């Protein structure tokens, strides 16, 4: 008899383990599951969540943060297993795939019903979240641009006035004043600078310009600002391009120039870049005099100990203009959410001035999507001693280019990572982009 009892007990255990996921209705407030990836931004959205609950005592928000590198695979697994969050921070590169699979809740009716004013946001941001099916899936929460971050001490040692950085010019032939600056800031182990005779490019102590990666197909903070200031665009149109332009001569000459910085010893090689710590850590250790970075990372750079940093705009290119990608995040609602009303209420709040202008802007970490909030965010940054004009000037001067939204971006990315890594490591010629471009165009087909 003993055997039978234990089998029954086991069965009972198995059963009890399986069936207790339903929550008691009417017991306390509804909890909204919210996911995000950036730890730097968690405090400000927690503050928004607190304000939201205060205004709507029926709703509570539980924020979960996952690192960027596992965020999308974790989210995919959650969608498959039915444990997806109600609302989550989303990215332009990733949302089309989820939208195409019917995993996101369209919000057109809700936007119309609640008369959300889409002109509140920086121009173009709201429409980035209308997918290929013509339905809207998100409301903008922030925008970002790219600028140079430099080490003040390194500039001083090189005898360079930070003001010189306001008028940098770049061209793909000789790199212009921008390359001259990078060369000047590069120092080898014997103290010789990159523009001095006898410079040893094999033993560099400080690189004039840091490198994050080969940039794959986007190059957002790596090379997009040069390529676009050279008149290049990612695709024949945006969003939903039918062909991509990685074989364009303007792109190729940009990449040829950019990778030549590695060859000249002004920028670290790919094997150095991928050998361990991230760009920010190497910069913090004084290994890079300047880096190109996205606005969302500003505060993290200012938190580095032992380095005093400044911001400068990216250089003016052959078009006579600067260029920066204009990217923005938004929140999406899962199609499978148990409580669409609660999810929408929270999303609406995140997209409202009450959250973006009154809370997020004042934290001075990112730029909210709402136009009026920019000035307030600039002030919040200024209070921390950061002049963010090099980021916001792109918006004022109209030198922003909306980030690319394309089908099958993950597959495009896989091809481009392989190709760009090989080019940046000098294992493949720049002309290998021709073949890669055919491959990615076939994917879009």
């Amino acid at each position, binding site marked *: 008899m003993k055997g039978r009892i234990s089998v029954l007990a086991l069965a009972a255990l198995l059963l009890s383990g399986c069936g207790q996921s339903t929550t008691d209705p009417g017991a306390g407030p509804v909890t909204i599951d919210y996911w995000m990836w950036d730890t730097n931004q968690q405090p400000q959205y927690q503050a928004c969540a607190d304000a939201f609950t205060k205004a709507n005592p029926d709703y509570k928000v539980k924020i979960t943060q996952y690192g960027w590198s596992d965020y999308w695979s974790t989210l995919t697994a959650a969608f498959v297993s039915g444990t997806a969050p109600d609302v989550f921070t989303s990215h332009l590169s990733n949302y089309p795939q989820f939208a195409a699979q019917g995993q996101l809740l369209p919000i057109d009716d809700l936007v119309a019903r609640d008369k959300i004013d889409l002109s509140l946001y920086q121009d173009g941001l709201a429409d980035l979240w209308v997918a290929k099916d013509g339905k809207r899936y998100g409301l903008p929460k922030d925008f970002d641009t790219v600028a140079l971050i430099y080490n003040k001490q390194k500039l001083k040692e090189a005898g360079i006035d930070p003001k010189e950085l306001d008028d940098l010019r770049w061209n793909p032939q000789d790199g212009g004043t921008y390359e001259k600056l990078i060369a000047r800031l590069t120092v080898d182990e014997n103290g010789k600078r990159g523009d001095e005779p006898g410079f040893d490019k094999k033993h560099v102590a400080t690189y004039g310009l840091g490198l994050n990666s080969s940039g794959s197909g986007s190059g957002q903070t790596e090379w997009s600002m040069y390529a676009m200031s050279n008149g290049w665009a990612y695709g024949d149109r945006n969003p939903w391009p039918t062909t991509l332009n990685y074989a364009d001569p303007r792109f190729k000459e940009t990449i040829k120039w950019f990778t030549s910085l590695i060859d000249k010893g002004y920028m670290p090689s790919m094997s150095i870049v991928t*050998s361990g710590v991230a760009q920010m850590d190497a910069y913090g250790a004084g290994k890079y005099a300047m880096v190109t970075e996205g606005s969302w990372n500003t505060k993290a750079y200012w938190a580095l100990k032992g380095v005093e940093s400044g911001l400068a705009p990216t250089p003016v290119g052959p078009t006579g203009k600067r260029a920066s990608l204009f990217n923005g995040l938004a929140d999406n609602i899962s199609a499978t959410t148990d409580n669409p009303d609660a999810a929408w209420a929270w999303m609406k709040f995140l997209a409202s001035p009450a959250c973006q202008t009154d809370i997020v802007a004042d934290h001075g970490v990112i730029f909210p999507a709402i136009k009026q909030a920019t000035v307030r965010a600039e002030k919040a940054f200024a209070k921390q001693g950061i002049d963010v004009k090099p980021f916001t000037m792109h918006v004022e001067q109209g030198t922003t280019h909306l980030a690319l939204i394309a089908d099958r971006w993950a597959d495009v990315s896989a091809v481009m990572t392989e190709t760009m890594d090989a080019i940046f490591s000098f294992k493949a010629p720049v002309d290998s982009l021709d073949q890669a471009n055919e491959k990615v165009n076939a994917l879009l087909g």
Partner: protein
Amino acid sequence: MSISHPSVRLAGSPGRRRRRSDLLPALVFVLPAAAGFTVFYLWPAIRGLYLSLTSYNVFTPPRFVGLDNYDRLLSDHLFWNALKVTAEYVLINIGVQTVAALLLAVLMHRLTRSLVVRGVLLLPFLVANVIVALVWFWMLDFQIGIVNQMLDWLGLERVAFFGDPDLAIPTIALVNTWRHLGYTALLIFAGLQMIPPAVYEAAAIDGASERQMFFRVTLPLLRPVMALVLVLTVIGSFQVFDTVAVTTNGGPINATRVIYYYIFDMAFNRFSFGYAAALSSVLFVLLAGIAYIQLRLTRAGETDLA
């Protein structure tokens, strides 16, 4: 509730012979493992085999495509590259690990019974894989890693251990060897303790040197244990994933795109679950074949201690 079915039938017929009554508790003890095996291994394996014949992105129902995925696999340079780098990883990892672990185990066996030594040897294994990987990743950084700092002080050239395509796989293989060495040594050490001391005494009386004892007594008698250790570590070694996932992400270029990482990438980042299932099926066949060959070659079921 089909799992309780067999035991109910057996328990319902009293007055069996002794052998039969042993069967019942035996089944009860096996049941949890069998249930776990069925639910978490057997069923997913069968379903994976089916999915490998489909085009499937998890969100829409799978569409049967026959052998298309296997056809694609044959001409996928990344699949062949994955096999190549995985094999390179396994060879270095298992080669170094097995020899070093055997030496360590014999040293422990012949020189010390100290629990402290055994504990220290096991220490790296007690640290989570991801943490081991990240700590080494940072220590080996070209510019600010402490290892390269030391190379610099010694007047040697710095080395991009994880960043150089030629060194990335050996580096990852040796980092994992470092972590698993103590554990493997302990497994072998346990095997050593099963060899009766009388054999060594007899060898000593016959005037055998320590070296001769190792090659003529220890190694032959250790064969079944070594076979088991090899089968387990080789299969585990083929499944290298987390170290790659937190350090190189398959790079530089494709130098560390090992088969498990490629499967994961295909499935969870690129939604090609059908193709990923085909890759997994091929890996399954490969591993089963390797395990079979190993067991045959090492006659793992037999012992020379008769």
